[in-house]
């Protein structure tokens, strides 16, 4: 076609000279056919045999190699991208040192990110999208697994059911998305209710009971003047607000997103949960929820409990470390942290924690998986909990005598983890949590009332809009 259309003035002449293009092609084919026919015979047969033999041999050699599972770890450095190691005494690093001693050809190194979850998320996403800085393993927040798996940043882990035996069900479930396992749970977390053991005999198990206990203690005459409110949690505008609001809603029997991914926020129970937070924060006498809680994160709410300001604190078990009374010599009565104990929250806790997942672009997937298995093994989990204070993802660790001795809360935490529920599983979790917080903030300002378009906004957010 192009041959006929070039050239200015001679074009039409040429068009007339060559009447049709199709016949030309047909002629060429015929010529080629004739050549083949001429050469057929012994020569052709020989060529066929040689070609067939070569192909057969190649298939025989290459196919089994491609199909058989490869063994042995790829050599080269493994890079783990993770938040800062906040364990006591840097236990993660100590575990990696052990791995490196055992696997000198596949040594591992942690590239650490700041402790803020959104900073970690941002760097991990950017790394996955640019592909220029090698990462083999991500230490993902449990809410990020769906996002990373959906976007194609991860490679599924290949394990049998026997390999995942012994993990607690809830943390393991956070590694699953779209029917595949995308990682193994590294450490877990669940919210607990810290309460003043000198003022509350039996920890409350419903929101109403919490309110009643607060009213009973605060209306008693002659109580500690420092005790100004009943309850505190993390209600500043960050992920803590999502967690605390979900837990209040669940405790009231409501929900936000059901198991099928449908938004079910518009229910009397959900409104009751939000109302509990909203009316608690509104000025009252006695004051159910410490009003400053609306700008509190984990450590600020811990401080308020430490300073005897509240009866109850919702927090992660890590607060236990801060609140534990240090050896007091010469301390006058009433200073230092108050006597306290922990129990399960009135409803299910939000499940926290991190999962180790293999980067899609890792050139060393087998070594990466072996390292993940090593870090989530029973022995590693025992060390991380016992020495580092990280809540283990394997049940057996919670029954260990040393662990129970060192962490009085271990049995309660195990209970809480068994009942804990994940936050909505969606590839668009960052968008969901942003929109949900907006709805909760509005509800807290309006006595627990939902904005009119809450259901629609959340349904859109679950799809990334």
């Amino acid at each position: 076609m192009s041959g006929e259309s070039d050239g200015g003035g001679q074009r039409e002449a040429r068009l007339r000279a060559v009447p049709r293009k199709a016949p030309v092609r047909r002629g060429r084919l015929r010529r080629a056919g004739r050549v083949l026919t001429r050469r057929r015979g012994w020569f052709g047969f020989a060529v066929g045999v040689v070609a067939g033999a070569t192909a057969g041999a190649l298939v025989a050699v290459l196919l089994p190699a491609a199909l058989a599972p490869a063994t042995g770890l790829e050599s080269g450095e493994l890079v783990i991208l993770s938040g800062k190691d906040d364990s006591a005494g840097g236990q993660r690093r100590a575990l990696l040192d052990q791995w490196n001693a055992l696997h000198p050809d596949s040594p591992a190194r942690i590239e650490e990110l700041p402790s803020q979850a959104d900073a970690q998320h941002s760097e991990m996403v950017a790394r996955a999208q640019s592909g220029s800085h090698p990462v083999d393993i991500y230490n993902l927040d449990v809410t990020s697994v769906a996002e990373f798996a959906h976007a194609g940043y991860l490679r599924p882990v290949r394990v049998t059911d026997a390999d995942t035996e012994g993990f607690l069900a809830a943390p393991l479930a956070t590694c699953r998305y779209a029917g595949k396992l995308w990682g193994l749970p590294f450490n877990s977390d669940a919210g607990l209710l810290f309460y003043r053991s000198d003022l509350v005999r039996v920890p409350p198990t419903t929101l109403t009971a919490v309110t009643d206990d607060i009213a009973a203690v605060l209306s008693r005459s002659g109580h500690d003047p420092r005790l100004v409110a009943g309850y505190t949690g993390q209600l500043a505008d960050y992920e803590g607000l999502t967690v605390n609001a979900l837990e209040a809603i669940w405790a009231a029997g409501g929900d936000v997103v059901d198991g099928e991914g449908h938004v079910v926020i518009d229910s009397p129970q959900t409104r009751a949960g939000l109302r509990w937070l909203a009316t608690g924060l509104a000025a009252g006498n006695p004051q159910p929820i410490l009003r400053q809680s609306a700008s509190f994160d984990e450590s600020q709410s811990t401080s308020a409990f430490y300073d005897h300001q509240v009866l109850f604190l919702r927090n992660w078990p890590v607060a236990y470390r801060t609140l534990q009374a240090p050896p007091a010599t010469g301390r006058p009565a009433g200073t230092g942290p108050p006597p306290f104990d922990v129990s399960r929250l009135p409803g299910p806790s939000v499940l926290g924690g991190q999962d180790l997942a293999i980067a899609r672009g890792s050139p060393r997937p087998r070594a990466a998986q072996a390292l993940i298995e090593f870090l989530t093994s029973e022995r590693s989990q025992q060390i991380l909990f016992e020495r580092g204070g990280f809540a283990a993802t394997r049940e057996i660790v919670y029954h260990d005598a040393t662990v129970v001795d060192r962490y009085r809360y271990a049995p309660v935490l195990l209970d809480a983890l068994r009942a804990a529920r994940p936050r909505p599983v969606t590839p668009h979790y960052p968008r969901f949590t942003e929109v949900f917080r907006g709805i909760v903030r509005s509800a807290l300002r309006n006595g627990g009332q939902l904005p009119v378009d809450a259901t629609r906004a959340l349904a859109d957010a679950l799809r990334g809009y």
Partner: protein
Amino acid sequence: MASGDNVDRDRTDVVGPGRADRGTIDPDRRVRTSVRVHVLLGLGVLGVLANALPQLATGWPTNTSQWVLLAVGALADAVLVALSLDRLLVAAPGGWSWVRRLRWPVRLRVVVAAAVAIGLLAGAATAATNLWLRVDRLINGCPEPAGLRILTTPESLDPSRQLAGAYEQQTAAGNRGCRTVDVYVAAAGAAPARDALAGGWSTDALRDVGPRPDVWLPDSSLQVAELRALAARNGIAVPLAEDRTVAWSPIVVGIPGSVAATVRAPRNGVAWSDLLAQLTGVPGGLVRPDPGVSVAGQIATTALYADLAGARDSPRGVESRIARALDRGGYPLADSGPVLCRQRAPDAPAAAIVTSEQALTRFNRGDTLGGECAVAQDKLPPGPSLLAFYPSATPGMDHPFVRLAWDTGPEPDRPAGAAADFGRWLGTADGKQALLSIGLRPAAGFDITGPLTNEFGALPGAVFDRRPPDPAAVTAAMRRYDTARRTGRVLLAVDTSGSMGQPTRAGRTRLSVAAEGIRGSLALMGPADEFGLWTFPANTGGTGVRAPVPIGSRDTPVAGQPRTQATMRSLGVQPAGGTPLFATIVKGVQALGGADGDRIRALVVLTDGEDTTSGLTAQQVLDAVRDKGVRVFVVAVGEASCAGPVLASLTAATGGGCYQADFETVDTRLAQLFGVLWEGDGRVG
């Protein structure tokens, strides 16, 4: 379909007349030429429109170069489109010869039919793509947005977040409601940011400063110049792919509305020295963000000093005025955020403040200022609202947009693409509007409206110097500042309780890591600065303090040893005992007391734990340290936390501060703090 039938019928109809025309050449050629001219003309118009319409959709060209670009682009487009369609017609079955055989009106119809067919085809393709996208969105929701990492300064953190939010939303508008980008904004001080960038964003920077930025939004080109200078000194190439000013914010003097009547000067154009002379009637005096931590403070200081000769004033005179006002009003030695936050407190005196116009309007608007003022509030009433005065030739913060291209590998890099896109957006009308709404003035020619109006204390038409600040002039001014500012009298109290003996991740004990940081900070001390060291507790019972290094000037030896050496030796103790934190703070403030207006008196406490053995309540400590003329700073490491209400409010009440650090960053934190407290030999960092 229908058009195809028409063409076929027309063709059979016109065969006869066409053949009849063949003998005559002239009309035929004339008609052919005319068709081609028409086709070319039509296509040319189409091309121009195709190029011009998208341009018009984002606004008319605003200057000559944009007009020239539009015209040239449209012409080029038209030629291209016309030529290629001409080719297509030629290549059609039978080529021109077939078209040529048709009579003129019929030919036109064929051309029109072909154009319609092409249009339909293009439409169908677009529709199919849309349909496919729609189905994909229905199943999968929005595609994963590109991650964009932005680094800015603590002073610009909140406004930059607002800007990034506007950009995210804008990308959704052009993409069926799906955001194409997810922005994370981090903040770092001038020195740590510069060092991290000049070091190629090492793994240490990744952990201690934050994600490696694709975009850097410093407050002034001064910071970019400093980065370039540092990189050149170290022989490192920093990949600055783009570096241009996107907005300005002039340095202004903000005067509270309640006392503005005492200032007899025009709002714009009065000389700096004349305006300063007018401030005598302002009860709170003149305050300024600290040049040690604020670039706005540095540029403001340069402007303040530039006009002193005529006023027979000196840097020392200006600095002692500012120091008095800062002390009296309980202002922290910090950047604009905390200084203005103090100004918002109900008990703050009515002081004039040198700061950027942006900080001033955000203050008046009730925007978040970080720290204690992290929650937005209503617009301020006229009394405490600041009125901006723009002295003549006042310099501006020339906010640059800096794009960093770290990787130039073959892999497609979505964050890098998003960064370039964000830069382009800042130049569009929407981007400029977003810059304006965070209180910045976009490039010239843009209509300055709210919030930079009198409603929030600004003068939209104010004249100021848009040139980038001269690095040499700022360096010279900072040298004068260092000799003019007060010297420091600093007592450092170091926690040597049992917990300081724990190993850090690097293996050394907490105390030895802290001691290294202290050694680095002592090197910043000037000859006239004074320093003393305490350690606590004094005994294994966990109470009392030791005073191994009494307060004295740098070159006064301690028991025959140089001061630094004596300090390091005293920190070599075995950590043991409890943490009498509150008792130490109370005693330290007493030890530093005594009137001495020419010195910054500061108690710096480095601790890793809560108070355990003082036997004092927070209120008792607060009463004992407030209004004593001593600023209390706490550097909290390990289990100690500034987030709690006690340490933050205690230090804020003295004009000091509480800084959270970990053992990787405690040295930088101490250096930054001592750089502010000590006169030193030069500027820190």
